[in-house]
């Protein structure tokens, strides 16, 4: 069965989630991945959105993180001070999903500017809640398509902290969470080194060879000795994505 890169990324992200976990969700693929996980192995997943919805069960695919469908039927809807102070800073979030225009070898993410901050070539939206998710979630998972532009050795601006930045490790900075443990790309998965937090190629998708990944990363990517090979989406996963979860192709545009 043929499938798209987005479908594969969504499936891989869904499989990362364990039943009952508390997930801080953004819009787009992470949202779909959570829905897929809930429909398969993790029915008790708790979805939290920075907008204030806790335990959301949206009846439609939310078009923004403040979609009314996230509120209706949620377990709790509260103010943003609670979300950032009690849930995130309070250490209650187990998994956070992040993406960004640039991701570097330590998983630092830039969503602020391309170029110089004072005179940017491209002005991006900025942090939103990403800096806090990256700081406080017990672990974060980055999702991004590979390209040398998106994966420079060092990002132009660190919006969300990775495993090492500004000369110190997360531990030295005293950051609570474990940081970005994985980067799910369109060709394989990078995992953070236990030793120094650098991202290493750890798994490949079907039909992908090592060079397909290393050539699309802007630094000399470390490759683990034994690479995992990740199973393609099952027929059931694809059926759920295509027929149930995103039949209007709101997120899976390329499929």
């Amino acid at each position, binding site marked *: 069965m043929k499938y798209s890169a987005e479908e594969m990324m969504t499936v891989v992200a869904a499989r990362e989630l364990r039943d*009952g976990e508390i997930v801080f969700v953004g819009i787009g693929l992470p949202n779909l991945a959570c829905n897929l996980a809930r429909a398969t192995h993790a029915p008790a997943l708790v979805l939290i959105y920075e907008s204030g919805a806790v*335990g959301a*069960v949206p009846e439609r695919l939310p078009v923004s993180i403040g979609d009314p469908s996230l509120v209706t*039927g949620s*377990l709790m*809807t509260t103010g943003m001070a609670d979300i950032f102070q009690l849930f995130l*800073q309070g250490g209650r979030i187990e998994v956070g999903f992040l993406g960004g225009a640039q991701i570097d070898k330590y998983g630092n993410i830039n969503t602020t500017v391309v170029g110089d901050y004072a005179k940017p070539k491209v002005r991006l939206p900025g942090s939103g809640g990403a800096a806090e998710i990256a700081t406080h979630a017990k672990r974060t998972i980055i999702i991004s398509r590979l390209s040398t532009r998106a994966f420079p050795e060092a990002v132009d601006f660190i919006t969300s902290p990775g495993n090492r930045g500004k000369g110190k490790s997360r531990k030295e900075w005293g950051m609570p969470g474990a940081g970005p443990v994985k980067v799910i790309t369109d060709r394989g998965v990078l995992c953070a080194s236990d030793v120094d937090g650098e991202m290493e190629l750890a798994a490949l998708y079907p039909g992908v060879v090592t060079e397909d990944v290393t050539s699309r990363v802007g630094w000399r990517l470390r490759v683990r000795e034994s690479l995992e090979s990740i199973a393609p989406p099952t027929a059931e996963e694809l059926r759920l994505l295509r027929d149930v979860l995103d039949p209007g192709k709101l997120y899976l545009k390329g499929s």
Partner: protein
Amino acid sequence: MASGASGTSKVVSMRDAIARFVHDGDTVVIEGFTHLICFAAGHEIIRQKRRDLVLCRLTPDIIYDQMIAAGCARRLVFSWAGNPGVGSLHAFRRAVEAGNPPLEIEEYSHFGMVARFAAGAAHLPFWPLRDYNGTDIPASNPRILQVTCPFTGEKLAAVPALNPDVTIVHAQRADAEGNAQIWGLLGVQKEAAFASKHVIVVVEELVETSIVRADPNRTLIPGMIVDAVVVEPWGAHPSYSQGHYDRDNEFYLAWENVSRDEKSLRRYLDEFVHGVEDRAGYLAKHPGLTERLAARAMMCEGVNYGY
């Protein structure tokens, strides 16, 4: 700490909840400002003979007076220790004035206690407040310090985070996973629960999750931070539960005489705490109580969550 959603029920008996989550030496919070004070939990702690507890609460109220008299407490952390609307807590006074039994105290104002819970809930080491200047309060408590604002240079009071081992919250209703809804006075229950390693939610009514999900803005405490749910109607008596029953003011008035004398207080505990097995037994000893205090219906309208 409760972690994630079990998908399974957390409903247990009060006996099991206390046995499992309240241990000798623990820092324990039973919160609720006048409203929703869980006397049922306090009584079970007394029955299970817990010792050396650090009891924290803005207003110790009658329930902590009973726990102090029963010898459960090593230390009291508080901001107003009286019988609200009546006068003194005499077991507390005997402990502080005569060391009978010995009791360490650690004292704040209400705002100071609120701030300690807020810091604990937000995982901050301290909370800043404009307070205590020109008073003897900081000199009486070495845990009240000052913090300097990095912008203005102002010196503000600072109190440290309070992170209890267990917080017990009484709520009007919750589902089996502990998603708890409270209306009327909210006190500091949200902050205390989020600050705590473990949370026990005691409810007047166990409801389907669909009831909670129908009005998510009413949820004060999410099930993901709750360890146990105890279904204990009238569990807050002589305190009250808005929409269920009124405060038993006669009881508060009578406590003045019961507690003024050590022996009569002990007789009270013997009969109404040790002398019963659980809350059902307690209620059986108060005939007519539920008729006398039951709330009349004053329902508000619902709102529209549609889109």
